[in-house]
């Protein structure tokens, strides 16, 4: 039942989001015609292309036409490349997905031990250092961090390539090297958020009666922390993981441009600049579905993490 409810909600979200983005894109001044034909095209050639692309049709007609195609699994054809948008997105999706997953691994891989250690020693040097580091990372734009990391790890130490992308199917090792810097750059900001959240929730949890009881029963501090306190303290963290997906996708746009990665974010930005409306629409659908699905998965994870929620 909950799945049906979520699916209905997803459809409503999709229709609203895609219509708004379609309308907003069409409000932008400029059109794809100059991008396709160049400056030296005649007025007749431009008018013909406008007709061919259907840009002379009213906005609502074009939207419904696109929506009808989408229901049949057709994302439309790119104005610029004249290739199916679905195929273009499918080609870019693995890059962005890998980047997102790797960034989350970096963020969580650092945030959980650091957050736990800071909570355990709340107010002491490590905790204060974490606070300072968090603010530093949160206030550093990803493009600055990216350039700094390239300078240190690629230019000075030359341990990873500065830019470029090797698909995982071609060479796993080289794929890892091409994703490591972008993932660290993207994951650092998330690490700061996650570590702060976990620390705060853990400190609160460690004040709970059942923790006092566990201590009284003689359980070791490490066991109490990792077995009994961490799971119930992770709810805010899990919520943040779902909600931050939007911020992460926004970050991939910059990261993909900076590191020369052929992902969905870069495709969408390029398509906005070239007024390739249908490609942008396809990207919007993909992100909307991804966002809703991830947050649905987050809801399911709540119950797995904290049995009290399942019972409720």
């Amino acid at each position, binding site marked *: 039942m909950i799945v049906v409810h979520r699916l209905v909600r997803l459809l409503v979200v999709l229709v609203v989001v895609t219509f708004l983005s379609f309308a907003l894109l069409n409000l*932008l*001044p*400029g*059109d*794809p015609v*100059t*991008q*396709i*034909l*160049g*400056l*030296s*095209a*005649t*007025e*007749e*050639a*431009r008018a013909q*292309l406008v007709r061919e692309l259907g840009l002379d049709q009213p906005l609502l007609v074009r939207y419904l036409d696109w929506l009808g195609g989408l229901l049949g699994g057709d994302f439309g054809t790119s104005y*610029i*490349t*004249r*290739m199916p948008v679905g195929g*273009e997105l499918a*080609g*870019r999706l693995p890059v962005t997905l890998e980047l997102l997953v790797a960034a989350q691994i970096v963020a969580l891989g650092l945030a959980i031990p650091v957050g736990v250690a800071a909570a355990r020693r709340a107010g002491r040097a490590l905790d204060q250092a974490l606070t300072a580091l968090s603010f530093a990372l949160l206030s550093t734009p990803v493009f600055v961090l*990216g*350039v700094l990391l*390239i*300078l240190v790890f*690629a*230019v000075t130490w*030359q*341990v*990873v*390539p*500065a*830019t*470029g*992308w090797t698909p995982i199917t071609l*060479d*796993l*090792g*080289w*794929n*890892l*090297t091409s994703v*490591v810097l972008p993932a660290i750059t993207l994951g650092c900001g998330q690490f700061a958020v996650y570590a702060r959240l976990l620390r705060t929730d853990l400190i609160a949890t460690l004040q709970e009666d059942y923790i006092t009881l566990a201590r009284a029963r003689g359980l070791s501090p490490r066991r109490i922390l990792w077995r009994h306190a961490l799971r119930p303290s992770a709810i805010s963290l899990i919520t943040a993981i779902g909600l931050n997906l939007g911020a992460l996708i926004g970050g991939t746009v910059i990261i993909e*441009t*900076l*590191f*020369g*990665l*052929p992902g969905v974010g*870069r*495709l969408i930005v*390029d398509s906005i*600049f*070239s*007024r390739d409306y249908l490609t942008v629409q396809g990207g919007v659908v993909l992100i909307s579905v991804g966002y809703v699905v991830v947050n649905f998965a987050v809801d399911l994870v709540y119950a797995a993490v904290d049995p009290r929620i399942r019972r409720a």
Partner: protein
Amino acid sequence: MKRWRMPATLALAATVLLACSGQRPVEPGAPSGAPATGPAQGGRLIYALSADANGFNPVTDQFAAQSYSMSGTIIEPLVSVDADGGWKPYLAESLTPNQKYDEWTIKVRSGISFSDGISLTGDIVKANLEAQKRSPLTAAVFGPIESFELPDPMTVKVVLNQPWVAFPYYLAAQNGMIVPPSSLTDPKTASLKPVGTGPFLFKEYVPDNRMVVTRNPRYWRQGLPYLDEIEFRILPDSQTRAQTLEAGGVDAIGTSRDEDLTKFGALKDAYTVHRAGGMAVAEYMFLLNTAVAPLDDVRVRRALAYATDRKTVISTLRGGLTQPADGPWSKDSPWYAAGGYPDYDLAKATALIKEVEAEKGPISFELISTPDPNTMQGVELAQDMWRKAGVKVTIKQADQADLINRAITGNYAATVWTQFSAQDPDGEYIWMHQAYAKPVGAISLNMTRLKDAKLSAALDTGRTDPDPAARKSAYATVQERLRELVPYVFVDHLDTGAIIAKTKVRGIGEHVLPDGEKGLPLTGSPVPYHPFGQLWVSER
């Protein structure tokens, strides 16, 4: 449960360390024993470009500099340009005009095949030119062409509706690039997988990531190409592009940043810097709409030119690396004519503005800029300089698509602009001739909408008169009229476009044309391009 953790962790760490060791998977054809004295066969080049192509089909896809870099390794033109700026046959053996220059006979070079095995013949060249004539991309440029004929299997006759002296130059670009019949019948495939007669064969293309081409073993120019493989890597961010070169991730980059020229130029043992020059360089300017107030008044336009301190702009924006422009052609061009430009003189600017204000009231207008910081800095400089002369300028940001749309429809007063990099002055015909100036609201290729009979007559003479002296005189008149009427406030010649390469990359800008002439080193703007067939990689 815990037993597997340690070995697994070690294995993962080992994989990551191995991957991070900088040892790229072995590529075929790595350079081997290149002699220090001359070009060596073999090797792989990684070449970073600032943007991806919109497609590789010269008939259907609009080509920018990066498109020429990539597709130029595979598809060749009928004509090329030599180091002196003159046109020379390439796939064509000869191009001969009739006495009136309203017919051109193109003799196709024999013994050339496309990589799909089809021989290059006159009917294929004719089919290509016909497709170009039909293409909406080039309809305006090929406007004077009446018809194509095939007098014999290796000859194409181009019949024009007016004399056209510089016609061959147009065949040195996208319009003259020849593809096989299969590409003409299947343009979609040709957009993604180009086929041609060129020194390299298409191997792989991943949009927004890379294009890989490999040596064409049956290339018609004996002994070429030298390289086995080229990977073009798309790296849009200029700073990371330069950092990737420093890190050794690529062998050469295209750039237009003055800091790259300064930095890499100082490291002569490690890098070579090749800058574009002459007619290939575009001009940075402010485009003025002469059809709307207040810029329909030539006194206001002249005042803006007087108020523009080009040297300050150049020292601020380009680190002093470029030269001031006073017209569409630089001083090292054979077409340049000196004198008459309203050079910086704030007193004259102020006096002119006061004169106009006395008649029409305060002068104010909107200046459009793209939002990137460097362009905005230039626009803000102009705003400040023009304010000192008494003009109130409001800056409006627009992205590239919006800015271009406004320019061609006349929905602007002034905008920042970069243009004029044709090899022959006739290449600027459609942008300046009054026949292409349309009213505000209509599409106008003459974006300043300046209608000047003298200027247009001079452009017509330059197009139709075969006498070099008459042409030179005509284009001197063009420059004189532009300086008199100021539809453009020129700032500088953008010759910061450059290719920066490791010193082991040889042959950039040193290619020789099929008949032995030295070719034009670099062309295109803002980042230049060059042929790759004669590039080679030395040991160091």
